[in-house]
């Protein structure tokens, strides 16, 4: 089975810190409140012109000030939105968990992240292009090779390496434990969470951070998603009969995980436990078939020792793509057949699709649900697709007793993953 068994894991894994940034705010509480109120983070793209693109909307975060994050000007030159978000959320989660003090040796703290593709900024290369122009306005390759390239900022290439933002975050926190960077889609954030949980469960690290970071919304990333055929026209409508694709979002979440014993010794408050994970790959299809999605969910349940009826809320991937939502709904119906009280929610109608960040942000939202007993409305789900046969929470927030939340995610290349978080006590 492609998941782990929490009963065989050794240490209980608890979450004691959360840092989160999305288009709806810069803290878990602020974001969750806005979601409960039914606000959307999706709006017209500003900052670069969108004429020519069929999709002119996205869920973007406001500017983050590198100075306020303690980032030097030198480092800021090779950083961009994705790196700022990661540093901010990592610091917030660290502080929230009380790991920024002396309560745990930083050399042993593990750090796993899921991150998106890094695209070059046209502005960084333009001076080199201008220096290589011939009189007739065309590009002189010889000039470019001999002189032009020297116009590029010498550390520019570092900014192009996918792991540099991650390394800057390890520097900001001073953590030196085991680590890796997965990339680039929703499953990579789930993978980071799973590895962090296992690292703690198996006792390799007493504490571990798990991060998911979206790409910066840019002309290149819109073009890439657009050419993949996944973007909708103006907004994201999860499970709606009017759905026509997803909308890209910016965001990041970092969770601080540790063993129950470590939390107790440090006096940190467990916010939730993480108890299950499953993953699968659907062979031969560009959209995961329902069987692979179901297999990931089933494996997560088995690993956590739970029945389908034990899950109160499913935070679905629900990215608003016609085929993706259909496959996922089929999978949920297979796995949760008869579990009538299962509520299904998708955050993407409000926050857009944050790729590698989406699964970690959804897990952070799941923690808020466990703590508040509230499920926000899935924005733009009306009119709900009659054929999907799910209890979609839509229209307004629902208050209920929530003990266990499952998070599902799907990549556009075929990877599927599911995670389970449970109430702390």
């Amino acid at each position, binding site marked *: *089975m*492609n*998941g*782990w068994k929490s009963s*065989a894991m*050794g240490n209980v894994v608890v979450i004691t810190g959360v840092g989160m940034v999305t288009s709806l705010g810069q803290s878990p509480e602020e974001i969750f409140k806005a979601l409960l109120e039914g606000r959307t983070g999706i709006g017209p793209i500003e900052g*670069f*012109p969108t*004429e*020519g693109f069929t999709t002119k909307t996205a869920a973007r975060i406001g500017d983050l000030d590198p100075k306020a994050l303690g980032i030097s000007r030198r480092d800021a030159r090779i950083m961009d939105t994705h790196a700022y978000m990661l540093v901010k959320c990592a610091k917030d989660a660290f502080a929230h968990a009380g790991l920024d003090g002396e309560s745990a040796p930083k*050399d042993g703290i593990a750090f796993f992240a899921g*991150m998106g593709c890094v695209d070059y900024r*046209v502005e960084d*290369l*333009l001076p080199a292009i201008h220096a290589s122009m011939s009189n007739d306005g065309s590009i002189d390759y*010889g000039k470019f*090779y001999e*002189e032009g*390239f020297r116009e*590029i900022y*010498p*550390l520019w*290439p*570092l900014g*192009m*390496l*996918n*792991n*540099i933002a991650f*390394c*800057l975050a*390890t*520097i900001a*926190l*001073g*953590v*030196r*434990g*085991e*680590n*890796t960077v*997965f*990339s*680039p889609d929703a*499953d*990579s954030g789930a*993978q980071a969470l799973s590895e962090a949980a*296992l690292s703690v469960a198996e006792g390799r690290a007493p504490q571990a951070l798990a991060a998911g970071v979206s790409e910066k919304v840019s002309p290149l990333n819109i*073009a*890439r998603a657009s*050419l993949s055929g996944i973007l909708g026209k103006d907004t994201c409508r999860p499970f709606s009969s009017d759905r026509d694709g997803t909308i890209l979002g910016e965001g990041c979440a970092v969770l601080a995980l540790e063993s129950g014993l470590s939390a107790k010794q440090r006096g940190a408050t467990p916010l939730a436990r993480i108890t299950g994970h499953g*993953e*699968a*790959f659907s*062979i*031969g299809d560009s959209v995961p078939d329902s069987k*692979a999605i179901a297999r990931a969910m089933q494996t997560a349940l088995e690993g956590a020792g739970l029945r389908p009826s034990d899950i109160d809320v499913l935070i679905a991937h629900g990215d608003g793509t016609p085929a993706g939502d259909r496959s996922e709904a089929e999978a949920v119906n297979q796995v949760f057949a008869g579990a009538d009280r299962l509520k299904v929610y998708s955050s993407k109608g409000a926050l857009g699709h944050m790729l590698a960040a989406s699964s970690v942000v959804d897990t952070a939202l799941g923690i808020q649900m466990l703590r508040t007993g509230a499920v926000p409305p899935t924005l733009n789900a009306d009119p709900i697709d009659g054929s999907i046969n799910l209890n979609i929470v839509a229209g307004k927030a629902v208050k209920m007793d929530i003990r266990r939340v499952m998070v599902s995610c799907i*990549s556009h290349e*075929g*990877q599927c993953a599911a995670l389970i978080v449970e109430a702390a006590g």
Partner: protein
Amino acid sequence: MPEEKRRVVITGHGMVTPLGMDSEETFSNASEGKSGIDYLKAFDTTGLPCRIGGEVDDGKLEEFERSLPKTKLKRYLSRGMRFMRVATHEAAGQARLGDIEDRSGIGVALGSHGDNTAVQDIMALHRFYDGEGHWDMQGLMRAGGYPYGDFFRRKSDVATAVLSMLYDLGGPNVSIVSACSAGPQAIGEACYMIRSGRCDVMVAGGCESTLNFVGFVGFVLITALAERYATPQSASRPFDRKRNGFVMSEGAGALILEELKHAKHRGAPILGELLGYGSSADAYRITDTHPKGLGAVLAMSAAMEDASLGPEDIDYISAHGTSTQQNDLTETRAIKEVFGERAKEVPVSSVKSMLGHPIAAAGAIEGILALMGINRSVMLPTINYENPDPRCNLDYVPNEARTQEHRRVLSNSFGFGGQNACLVVGKYEG
């Protein structure tokens, strides 16, 4: 009581390097101390301060590809992924991967970064950009738009998805992008997946091709490449006093990792055991390694602890040994810190002296070569070692391969930005 630890063995391996189109050819050339470095042919390097690299022969690559089953997926393959396909073909054949019935128990973990944007693409795009945020989209579309395949070759999960499709693998599917540590981290994560029971078999490794203009110029700009060399073949000189930078190369390394009982049950060849994995972060400076090699010390120690071994159990170290002033000194210091008195007795060599540095592929290729060395009782040499550096005073297996029985190897990878990963590979001893 904890369950018995699931052991991870290696049942197949394959590689493509500047020294060969498979493991055997590469190992054989390396054991003769041959260099795979030459002047670059892929693009015109006139005017650049470094003009050399370790290229995989195009003709041989194409010839090999013609012998592989035809696939519609070819347009999505980056150059690095083309290497990986060849390497995986070799590894899968050796492990008889096709015989395994439950395909959902086989996964993929790959260190790869996807293709760099081609300079032609950049130039083409810039014609439609005014420098102040405005794109002439209509013009771009009239000119044919931006090629679909180019975006996909940059996405690292396309590579793992393609591998899954080519070999019908339904297990965990992860792509790792941690620069020079990506390959060993993929192998390490694959090892964890098997140990924790998430799957029984993993295709793991790394692939890279950055010998294109954008990738290469990037490293010229950070002044990390060797710029002073008498001949291309003598430019990569790890631990030598006159070392002055690394030599970029390309390639792929693929391993078939398998749970021991699973391998035994189906009678797969057991070539060796993956005994331990450890990773760490320097958390020091983005452009420099920790001066005392703290991250390196942590990763080496973690890998040995994971293998339940101590310094006295390690017979040979396959060094990261990039041939930069900084790495080779720091690595030497870190080895001394971890191995103490024993540091001078343990042979340490860097095959980057012959193969150059293929970034995400490096640790995977080096791990396989270490395993082959164990099985043949050969320690590969550090070539171009001519001028001893008083600060680097370990036994670097200078210039000639050494015939010596050994059982356990520590293989080091220390990446840009400060991500480190070490593997302990051992002889399979039942």
